[in-house]
């Protein structure tokens, strides 16, 4: 088992290195994308900070607490971009026949499709976000080590949930060879995770917790850190991720079993 993990870690490091080198070869393009990502981050921060010039709290949260929600959203989103970027090319991979090659290679086609492409620019922007999160966590009143561990665990749980979404989209692409926008709809809906889930009306909050669980991905870790999440909700978050992972992997296996090659 550990040998298998080492083998996949080596494989991921190799493919990630190649994809990062390819990306960094295009300096002007990469600089544009990098500046764009930084602009988006800075403008949202400026917006949130400017709003707090006019109000004391938003939905009961102070500036630092709101910043924690926003930063948590960015951490989860960027980690997904770094590790699961391959899904964005899933349709091309299937339509151009590359998926057939993945199937005959001695490794998991799922990991090849989902994880073999790494966005180096998100790796670069992730570090300042992590640093800012550390500063925010440090500046909040001391809430205890256990809360920090819970925050980290729920953030990892959120990444697992995002992984499940990406696997489901990859499976959908293998099955239908269409729905190129499926991953983009996820990206757009994720926009709602930039703000604490408490800003939304009750029906929307319900939908974001049980329907499209953006709240579990982005709001739950910060709420747990602030001591606003009951043990029942914490258990729900972990159970949801486990169920979503199991369901998406089963769907992936079923899609691959029905796959009859669409090109090559």
């Amino acid at each position: 088992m550990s040998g298998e993990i080492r083998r996949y870690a080596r494989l991921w490091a190799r493919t990630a290195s190649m994809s990062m080198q390819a990306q960094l070869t295009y300096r002007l393009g990469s600089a544009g994308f990098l500046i764009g990502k930084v602009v988006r981050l800075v403008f949202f921060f400026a917006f949130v900070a400017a709003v707090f010039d006019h109000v004391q709290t938003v939905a009961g949260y102070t500036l630092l607490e709101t910043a924690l929600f926003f930063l948590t959203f960015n951490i989860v989103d960027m980690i997904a971009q770094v590790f699961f970027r391959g899904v964005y090319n899933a349709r091309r991979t299937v339509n151009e026949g590359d998926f057939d090659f993945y199937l005959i290679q001695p490794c998991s086609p799922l990991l090849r499709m989902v994880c073999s492409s790494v966005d180096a620019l998100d790796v670069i922007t992730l570090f300042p976000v992590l640093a800012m999160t550390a500063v925010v966590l440090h500046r909040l009143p001391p809430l205890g080590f256990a809360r920090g561990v819970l925050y980290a665990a729920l953030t990892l749980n959120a990444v697992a949930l995002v992984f499940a979404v990406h696997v489901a989209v990859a499976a959908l692409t293998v099955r239908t060879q269409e729905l190129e926008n499926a991953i983009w709809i996820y990206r757009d809906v994720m926009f709602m995770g930039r703000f604490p889930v408490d800003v939304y009306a009750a029906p929307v909050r319900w939908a974001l917790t049980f329907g499209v669980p953006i709240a579990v991905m982005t709001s739950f870790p910060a709420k747990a850190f602030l001591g606003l999440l009951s043990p029942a909700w914490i258990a729900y978050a972990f159970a949801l991720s486990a169920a979503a992972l199991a369901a998406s992997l089963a769907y992936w296996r079923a899609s691959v079993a029905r796959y009859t090659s669409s090109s090559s």
Partner: protein
Amino acid sequence: MKKYLTAYSIALQETLQRRWTLLMDRVGGFAVVLSLYSFWNVLLGDKATFLGYTRPEMLTYVLIINVLRSFVFTGRGWLLVGEISSGRVSSYLVRPLRYEGYALALDLAQKTVHVGSAFLEIGLLVLIVRGGVFVPRDPAAWALFALAAAMASLIFFFLEFAVSTLAFWTSESGGPLFCFELFLQFAAGAFFPLDVLPEGLRRLLSATPFPYMVYFPARVLLQKIPPQEAVRMLAGESAWLAAAAAVAAAAWNRGLLSYAAEGG
């Protein structure tokens, strides 16, 4: 003119034919509007006004953002980059049409569908949100808004066109285009009214064409700008439009001089 109308008609049919893509695009846009509305709604709380906007005015601003994002920011820049980089643009150069006109016809077709959808979404939002919307009684406000929005759309078209023509000189023009589009959306007020920004930054932005794209038309509709001042600003917007068109034409012509294609 007839050939551009035919291009418009065919593009309109194509856009309507790709129903899933359209539906997903709109669901994503709706999620953005819903989150912005919810955020502003929480900020307003029990206050009569926030940043000089009453609740109906702020709700109307958010709804207008939805229309203007569909009408102004729906462009063909990425397609143009792809067409130049792959050489497909050659096939247009040998046809008896002007590429700019052809691109504008396709752009208008896309905008027609998206604006229609945006109005449907607005109808839905108006039904489910509380607080009502601001409907200007003065027909002049509607006329000035329509004029401002039409010019904003053209300014975006020409600016995006100019940035996309970078593809004539480099295969990495996607990065600058990405950066440009992101910056533009924030600087135009497509996420939040620019009133929230510090005075200095607002003054800086007012020296660019960006606020004319969303912030200005939205404020005209909300009757936040006196008619005489609005007419004066429309003159400024038309000057920016002329400048953007000139830059786009110059970039296209210079790009064509350096363009070379082989094969067929």
